[in-house]
């Protein structure tokens, strides 16, 4: 056994050189993703911004992608890690298709696969710095779930990542109901995205809404929300706040 000349183990907690092998902090990040179940499937919204710290550097980043025939993945957090995840899923779907039998991986299976990946990376202290939203519909069964960078995962009728958790979910809890029509679903998502646009510094006014139904996935062209900045509360924002300036 040659201890002296041993190489630093891959994801060691010791030593500065080993740190270049693992994720310490994110660089180019996407902000919130919001999604909900509606009558025919899942609706998901995300803006097209890629921030470099506090700079809104990239404004044409598609943060939602179709996975196979039945699923839709949206991600916030480190964009390069999202691209890596897409590569893993590409392989997964490819091998699934290569079986060429009547079976295919549905959204539940993809969600659980991602949970395993995220949790395993977290255990190696080398996380994929993303919060993922996985939605889809297969054989009439709608599915919507989320996985965080530490492997926390759950399913719900409506989910959000990042700031969306704080600003969008309360709205969804109040206003979501079963069997929303497509128009109502989009209106509800736009309401959430508008609040995020007003209050999240890393949000930009260029978003896409994706929908996935039994027929497949469609993603809208990028568009902007109408905003109104003439509210009197915006003129003197700290008027009523004690201690603020």
């Amino acid at each position, binding site marked *: 056994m040659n201890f002296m000349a041993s190489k630093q183990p891959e994801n060691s907690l010791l030593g500065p050189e080993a740190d270049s092998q693992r994720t310490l902090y994110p660089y180019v990040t996407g902000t919130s993703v919001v999604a909900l179940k509606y009558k025919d499937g899942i609706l998901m919204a995300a803006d097209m911004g890629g921030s470099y710290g506090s700079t809104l550097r990239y404004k044409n980043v598609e943060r939602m992608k179709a996975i196979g025939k039945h699923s839709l993945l949206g991600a916030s957090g480190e964009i390069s890690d999202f691209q890596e995840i897409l590569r893993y899923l590409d392989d997964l779907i490819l091998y699934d298709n290569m*079986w060429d*039998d*009547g*079976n*295919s*991986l*549905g959204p*539940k*299976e993809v969600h*659980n*696969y991602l949970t*395993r990946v995220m949790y395993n990376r977290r255990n190696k202290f080398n996380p994929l710095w993303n919060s993922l939203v996985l939605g889809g519909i297969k054989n009439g069964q709608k599915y919507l779930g989320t996985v965080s960078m530490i492997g926390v995962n759950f399913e719900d009728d409506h989910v959000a990542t990042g700031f969306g958790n704080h600003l969008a979910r309360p709205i969804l809890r109040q206003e979501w109901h079963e069997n929303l029509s497509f128009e109502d679903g989009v209106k509800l998502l736009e309401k959430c995205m508008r609040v995020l646009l007003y209050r999240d510094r890393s949000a930009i006014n260029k978003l896409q809404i994706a929908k996935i139904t039994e027929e497949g996935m469609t993603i809208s062209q990028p568009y902007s929300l109408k905003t109104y900045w003439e509210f009197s509360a915006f003129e003197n924002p700290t008027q009523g706040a004690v201690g603020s300036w």
Partner: protein
Amino acid sequence: MFRNQYDTDVTTWSPAGRLFQVEYAMEAVKQGSAAIGLRSKTHIVLGCVNKANSELSSHQKKIFKVDDHIGVAIAGLTADGRVLSRYMRNECINYSFTYESPLPVGRLVVQLADKAQVCTQRSWKRPYGVGLLVAGLDESGAHLYYNCPSGNYFEYQAFAIGSRSQAAKTYLERRFKNFSDSSRDNLVKDALMAIRETLQGETLKSSICTVAVVGVGEPFHILDQETVQQMIDAFEIVGEQEGPAAEPDAAAAAAAGQEAAAADQGGSTEEGVAPMDI
């Protein structure tokens, strides 16, 4: 088959393009005691003959639960069968853990076949000496597959393997067109009839056979001896009494299942095997 100079190694081809070792492995399957399987659109039934070596010993386990939705019946070298069942269980459990979803039986069968193929192409290995009847459910419904030591696999509506399986196959060939829409209970009845065919006159009792069922909404499980005996009694009564009055009684007994059959149990076993009309 006779011995020849090309049969020592699995990696030696004969001039006629045969791998004798693989064929000898398939012979081993024919020597094992019979196992049968049949399926409808929603259920699959596996059955096998369990003969113990002596009165003192227990019989060998030939039907294995692989997962809630997959089970396997084996014929041939039971040790090889046990090892392959463990492999199958492992694959199912790993898939379930990663995807929270049951492994489609069609994929498991291919993995099993590929594993068997490896043993036909390595000089330091020998083929598995066991045939497997794999019963399972996947997205497209109920399936029954037969995996061969050669690494081939086939899908069947009904099949039988092992010694005297030809008798069971003949019975199944006559009836298989009805299996698709058969009820679960009739499927079990047909399985028991097929098993009986391989016994060649010996009385069919639940102590010498094992039956297992898997279906949509019904996880794979082996039927207990009592239930099997009751079903045997139910159809043996139908076989004996040809009169129309007797038939509704027997049908009612089969439907009620428990009380009537239990009452008749003493009578029918004493009278022995009823001759089949068909």
